[in-house]
């Protein structure tokens, strides 16, 4: 009987074949160029223009350094920048991780208990009207000069987009999928684990990508409010000495951290959400 049950025709939808080398390889290179080309050109053009204006107008370095001067400073100041970079990186990554864990956890909790959600959600939104960075000095007074107040500020900043996107993702699941699961003996937990949570993952990752770009703000404000190390501290110490180039170099380092974090989140999304539609990254 197994033979009669086979489909008469191969109904499998066409699957793109792996690109062979040769002309198709060249095609891939071309598509890479058309994807990354425009932003790279824009950035290079911007840097070139900056360099040109600073040089033609003879702007003094302590007022506004040229990109070449910043690059040279990064080399000479690296012994100062490197340890600061590591300190700030640690604050950002740990703070972000705390926010991700707490944010996803709270989103699931609020989703499972609608009464709690109705009670907590307005507070959650309301809490965002407090500019979190102004809490930094208070946290330093409370928690001291160590890493703790920085972690709290980074986590507070990253927390909100993750929670809100998580709740929205969990709530936007197709109701028919849940009905289908109910007719297949699924418990509340099974529905959460096998349907709602996977369905919410793209949304959760969106929240994390937004959070990844905010994280460095929290770390710098934390350091500005009280610290003796980190990139924020380097900037603060450089200001009265008019070491403008070093401030710029620290900004470059901060941007690099944010980009790496953003990239890491995107990579994790590719690994954990391989079914999601591509095209926005």
């Amino acid at each position, binding site marked *: 009987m197994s033979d009669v049950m086979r*489909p008469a025709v191969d109904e499998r939808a066409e699957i793109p074949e792996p690109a062979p080398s040769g002309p198709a390889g060249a095609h891939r290179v071309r598509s890479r160029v058309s994807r990354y080309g425009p932003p790279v050109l824009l950035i290079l053009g911007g840097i070139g223009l900056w360099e040109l204006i600073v040089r033609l107008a003879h702007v003094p370095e302590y007022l506004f350094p040229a990109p070449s001067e910043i690059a040279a400073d990064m080399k000479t100041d690296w012994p100062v920048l490197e340890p600061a970079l590591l300190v700030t990186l640690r604050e950002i990554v740990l703070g972000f991780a705390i926010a991700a864990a707490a944010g996803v956890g709270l989103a699931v909790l609020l989703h499972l208990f609608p009464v709690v959600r109705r009670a907590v959600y307005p507070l959650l939104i309301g809490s965002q009207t407090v500019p979190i960075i102004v809490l930094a000095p208070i946290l330093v007074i409370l928690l001291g000069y160590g890493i703790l107040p920085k972690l709290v500020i980074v986590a507070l900043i990253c927390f909100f987009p993750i929670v809100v996107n998580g709740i929205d993702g969990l709530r936007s699941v197709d109701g028919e999928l849940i009905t289908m699961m109910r007719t297949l003996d699924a418990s509340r937990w099974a529905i959460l684990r096998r349907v709602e949570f996977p369905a919410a993952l793209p949304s959760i990752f969106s929240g994390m990508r937004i959070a990844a770009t905010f994280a460095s703000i929290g770390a710098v404000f934390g350091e500005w409010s009280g610290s003796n190390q980190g990139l924020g501290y380097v900037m603060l110490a450089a200001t009265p000495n008019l070491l403008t180039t070093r401030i710029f170099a620290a900004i470059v380092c901060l941007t690099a951290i944010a980009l790496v974090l953003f990239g890491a989140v995107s990579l994790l999304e590719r690994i954990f959400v391989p079914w999601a539609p591509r095209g926005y990254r």
Partner: protein
Amino acid sequence: MAGAADALAIEAHGVTKSFGRVAALAGVGLSVARHSRVAIVGPSGGGKTTILRIVAGLLDPDAGLVRVAEATSAPQRLARCALMPQRDLLLPWRTALDNAAIALENQGLSRAEARDRTRPLFERFGLASFEKARPGELSGGMRQRVSFLRTLMADKDVLLLDEPFGALDSITRAQMQEWLLKAMDAVPRTVLLVTHDVEEALLLSRRVVVLSQRPGRVVAVLDADHRGGRSRREVVTSPEFVTLKEQALEALGS
């Protein structure tokens, strides 16, 4: 215990249901013998899906009685029925095999055990070598097969099929009807299916219940036990089939 009622897998009397001011069902009665196949045919929006959802225990009727085996309450009915939805509703984050095995996982089996039990049926139902395919890589017909298999794997005595092939083109649909008949012959279950296609209803079941326009009532019951090992084309073009089809269409008022 061997009373006549025990042989009935599904029984409904005077089932009435409204949604707000819209009356969906007006006193529907139904009886489906154990391991038989009954189709409900009716116009679109005539409350067919509502009947299935009531039998499945997803809804309760406003009035009337529904019984699935000995179960009368909605949660008990839900435990005895498996519903194949109109859309395949496969989960994109699961492979075809894991989609079909999901009911077993819900029932507490480990993923490995669930897979092991589902795999033999994949071969038997023409899905061999598609175990690891993602739903997005499957054609519409293949997706419906996985969806049917998922319903079957729940191991319920009663299968409720809601327009199982409504979204397919007519050629795939004909192939899938043949496939479903063989699948249903291979695993004896009580099957109640709804469709708006008279031919499909007559082909797939031994009894056809014709439903009226909304609010739905039963306007005719036709016995359609006419297959006897003939091919789909032979059946569809046979005089008895054409007569039955005319009767059904007349009952539908078209």
